[in-house]
């Protein structure tokens, strides 16, 4: 047995530990197959100030596996959902814990949880890219999925004026080639390779000079 607590006990534990700050606690079950073995989850809403403590509290119960942090644009607020699992490795014992963290759009900041779960930096970087939530204290502040020349202040998952504008997706034939991209890291080799091969003497097979090739081609056409 890996599990030391039931989903209801985890829910009670958190509501007691973060009294008055946690809301909408619910324990859910879903089952598939003929035996209907339940997949159990605990959902709760936590203010952003408490997220690190909440994750620490979970680590004290069992070190969780962080699946992903997903994000929803809900108008005035953005909701971040931290999907974590505890008690994996037993048989049918796993419990999924989902922390929903509301973040106001006019102050889109959330503290990083990387000091507790180092692997979280990957998904936190994605949230900065995609929904424009600033993760305070993130160890790696670079973009992750969006290209370097993607415009600043545009966030693909936003549903407001900061989302993808029509100009970026409609009538793309008007756009032309992208400009101002960083130059390639590799020097472009100016000489054609064939010429190089002759000068270095590496070539083993016969190499026709371009003029001769052309003549042969023309000759062939004439014969036909």
């Amino acid at each position: 047995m890996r599990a030391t607590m039931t989903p209801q006990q985890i829910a009670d534990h958190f509501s007691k530990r973060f009294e008055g700050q946690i809301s909408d606690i619910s324990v859910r079950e879903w089952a598939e197959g003929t035996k209907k073995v339940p997949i159990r989850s605990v959902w709760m809403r936590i203010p952003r100030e408490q997220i690190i403590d909440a994750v620490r509290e979970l680590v004290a119960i069992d070190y969780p596996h962080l699946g992903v942090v997903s994000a929803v644009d809900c108008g005035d607020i953005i909701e971040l959902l931290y999907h974590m699992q505890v008690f994996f490795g037993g048989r049918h014992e796993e419990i999924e814990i989902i922390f929903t963290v509301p973040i106001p759009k006019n102050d889109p900041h959330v503290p990083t949880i990387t000091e507790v779960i180092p692997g979280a930096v990957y998904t936190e970087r994605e949230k900065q890219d995609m929904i424009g939530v600033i993760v305070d204290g993130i160890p790696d502040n670079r973009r992750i999925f969006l290209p370097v020349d993607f415009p600043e202040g545009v966030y693909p998952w936003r549903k407001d004026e900061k989302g993808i504008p029509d100009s970026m997706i409609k009538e793309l034939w008007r756009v032309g080639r992208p400009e101002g991209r960083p130059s390639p890291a590799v020097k472009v080799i100016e000489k054609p390779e064939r010429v190089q091969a002759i000068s270095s003497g590496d070539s083993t097979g016969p190499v026709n000079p371009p003029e001769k090739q052309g003549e042969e081609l023309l000759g062939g056409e004439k014969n036909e």
Partner: protein
Amino acid sequence: MSDAKPSYFLPIGPIHPALKEPINFTLKMNGEVVEEVDFAPGRAHRGIEWMGMRRNPVQILHLCDRICGICGVHHALAFAQAVEQIAGVEVPDRAYYVRTIIAEFERIQSHLLWAGVAAHELGFDTLFHLAWQVREESVDVIEYITGNRINYGIIMIGGTRRDITQDMYPRIERALTYYEDLFAKMADLFLNDKTIHMRCRNTGVLSKQRALELGTVGPTARASGLAMDVRVDSPYAAYGDLDIEIILPEVYGQETVGDVYDRIVVRLYEIVQSVTIIRQCLAQMPEGSVLAEEKYAKLLNGLKKASGEAFGRVEAPRGEDLHHVRMNGKQEAPEMWKVKASTYSNQMAWVDILRGEQIADIPIIVASIDPCMSCTDRVAMVRQDGDAGVITKEQLHQLSVRKTREMQK
């Protein structure tokens, strides 16, 4: 004298068309040894989630099939699982079994594909050809059941679009026997080979603690001794009815190291496990239909009114796939759809397992977590002193092959 050697940067990538997360490595090298690792995914981000949020769930299902060419059905499964929870769709029991059988055949073909790639990266091309030849059998069965070799399109919200009927059993059984008979030979070729042992033992080691902290999943996590498998932990489809256990490297009777060799062990034994799972499914298959609602218009109408949120989690060949869906009952398209593929979780492990290794080991270590390999197609090497040169994939591959040959001497 050796101390004065300046370190230089070795970028690898970035074009990588097969995965959602294409990758660009920048490795800080000291001579032949990797000092630091950095990677930048997203060079060919297709915005599939963005597209999905403008389409209805049935359209998204077919988009899911195309997230990954190798483990497409698992994405469709995870998405269907989430939507069925939100809309309260009752899936017929038989459909769970059909889903499981397809998912396990996909695992067989994915692991064999990986085994071939791994052998090729080591310069063992005979084994690469053998692995890819025997892989054909599973792809043939998938084609026999679904009509397609990839992008099967068999999953539907509320079940599957095709059934596995009694007259198909002999063909499936033939494939299962084929893999059972083959296992001893494959295990001998991969695990008792002196060269593979030399190249893979103690190469790219990931400790159990780091595997946990970095959030790795699937065979990569299990090879480090971290017991986690969604099929056993949170059983979906028919897995709750079956007798399955998490495969750890101990299954081969050796101590867990967490290296490339252990990753081979886990994947090989999972192929056998898949065969037994399919056997169990065929034996226990319940009767009945495989689809809850055959009229798509009615199904879509019901989904349009559904509201709520749920997640779907499945164990894809490379590890956990997680789909989070939120629907608001006002529009056809989901309000939110987040896809978390397995490589998303495993990429962080590269930073740990590449550090301290040699250039010639990069191909096999990068391949060992089972990403798609086209990222090493083109490698450019830039030395800090401005001396620029290019290493093609071929040259990097040759380096790896040469190391194998030297070790064989």
